[in-house]
């Protein structure tokens, strides 16, 4: 059931006609060549949109934090300061690129590369809309976990390579925080996989209903707690908000990327903002019904349906993005030991409890959601979710 954006496009007559005409023109059958071209254009589109979102993330962060503190954010560059991130980009490119003398030159260069590859590779599986997702691997969520663990290695090497005590400590703490918070995130994803019975993103999203009471978050009490465990874990995994100890300005002088200047620092920052978007997207897809539109509006016409689904996915993700930025300016930063105790003594046991709870729920109620059991069991026999 592996379909992707290409198989979605090939359902349209126009695309088939186009393929036929091209293959006629260049002799041999051009489907595989055209799949590559379509994939390449789709990837370039997604990467540019993500870079834009990363840039706008910094702008949004400044504007929202200003709004929370009743002051005005950047408003000089462009209307309402919207072009601020472009100005930052230009500044980043033209700043001098310094590699500290004592540092390990090879690792200094590889670290941002690992971070960027780790974050951008997860975009292949993010479910923007039922047809518009780049590819629907049937190991979707598990692939995402595997690739996003590259970021932890990248951050650690970034800290280790720049050979200053501050960045060393920052890199070490950053890696320890990322890998320890990956456990609650993985266990809450497992709970959702138990309920929807499949690893590919499409089955995880289609297992829910468009209407809010059909979402996974209200499926049963365990997934309700699971959403908050996932969200806290996602916050900690992208070094955000109350858990941004590795780059704690006051103590570690911006932690692991102290020594990075100019463009290299921009990669770490871009990777972080895109990772926040990807994790918010994952939370929206797994718990808040992803791209499903309430009452499946626009069922008939495919193009309208795709845009509605894309809109529903992006609004949910941006709402979570707003919460992430909002949390950053309201909660104080955690100390290292509070950070670790929160993870190992509170989040992991709760996540394990949720997983066992979901398995029992799956067995006793055959995976039917709370709403179906309470309201629909009597009158209409609801066949699970479909």
């Amino acid at each position, binding site marked *: 059931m592996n379909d992707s954006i290409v198989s979605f496009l090939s359902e349209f007559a126009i695309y088939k006609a186009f393929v036929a005409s091209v293959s006629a023109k260049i002799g041999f059958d051009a489907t595989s060549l055209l799949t590559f071209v379509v994939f390449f254009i789709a990837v370039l589109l997604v990467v540019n949109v993500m870079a834009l979102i990363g840039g706008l993330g910094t702008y949004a962060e400044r504007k929202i934090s200003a709004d929370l503190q009743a002051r005005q954010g950047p408003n000089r560059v462009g209307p309402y300061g919207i072009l601020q991130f472009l100005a930052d980009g230009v500044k980043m490119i033209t700043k001098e690129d310094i590699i500290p003398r*004592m540092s390990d030159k090879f690792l200094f260069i590889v670290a941002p590369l690992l971070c960027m590859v780790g974050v951008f590779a997860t975009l292949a599986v993010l479910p923007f809309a039922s047809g518009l997702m780049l590819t629907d691997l049937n190991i979707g969520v598990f692939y995402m976990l595997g690739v996003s663990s590259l970021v932890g290695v990248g951050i650690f090497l970034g800290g280790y390579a720049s050979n200053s005590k501050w960045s060393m400590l920052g890199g*070490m703490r950053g890696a320890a925080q990322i890998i320890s918070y990956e456990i609650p995130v993985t266990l809450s994803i497992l709970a959702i*996989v138990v309920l929807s019975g499949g690893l590919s993103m499409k089955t995880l999203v289609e297992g829910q209903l468009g209407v809010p009471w059909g979402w996974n978050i209200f499926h049963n009490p365990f997934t309700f707690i699971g959403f908050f465990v996932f969200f806290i874990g996602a916050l900690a995994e992208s070094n955000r908000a109350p858990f941004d100890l590795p780059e704690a300005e006051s103590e570690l002088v911006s932690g692991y990327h102290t020594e990075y200047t100019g463009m290299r620092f921009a990669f770490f920052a871009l990777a972080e903002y895109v990772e926040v978007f990807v994790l918010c997207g994952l939370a929206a897809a797994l718990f808040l019904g992803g791209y499903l539109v309430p009452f499946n509006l626009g069922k008939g016409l495919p193009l309208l349906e795709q845009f509605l689904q894309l809109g529903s996915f992006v609004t949910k993700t941006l709402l979570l993005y707003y919460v992430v930025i909002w949390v950053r300016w309201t909660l104080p930063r955690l100390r290292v030991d509070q950070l670790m105790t929160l993870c190992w003594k509170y989040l992991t046991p709760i996540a394990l409890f949720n997983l066992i709870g979901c398995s029992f729920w799956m067995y006793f109620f055959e995976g039917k959601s709370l709403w179906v059991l309470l309201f629909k069991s009597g009158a209409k026999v609801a066949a699970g979710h479909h």
Partner: protein
Amino acid sequence: MSSYNLDVYMPVAILMIVAALLVVGALLVGHFIRPHNPTKLKYDAYECGEAPEGSAWSHFNIRFYVVGLIFIIFDVESALMFPVAAVFKKMNEIGRGGLVLVEILIFLSVLISGIAYCWRKGDLDWVKSYQAPKE
């Protein structure tokens, strides 16, 4: 030669290559635009102003290794649990859900006893202030 269609993985490969090219490209573009006047001071590690002394690779607390250890054990556990969790719904529909439930419970209880042991023995609590290992 093989009727093997792996086009589903094409975006993964393209994304990784495009990310790498983005990094290398931006650095190359910047290389020509950027000023380049290395002064000795500029190239030292940043020590809030003082001159850096000694290499940074000093002793580290063993706590970090215990965290990595517990992480990898639970990572492997989740790697094994994913296929079983993915199949639970299908097995439940054909009436064998109880068997899978029991297997999952045994698997999890053994690992929960592991983390309970580490909790009890105090491996999980993080030392407040940074002390070098006592011995």
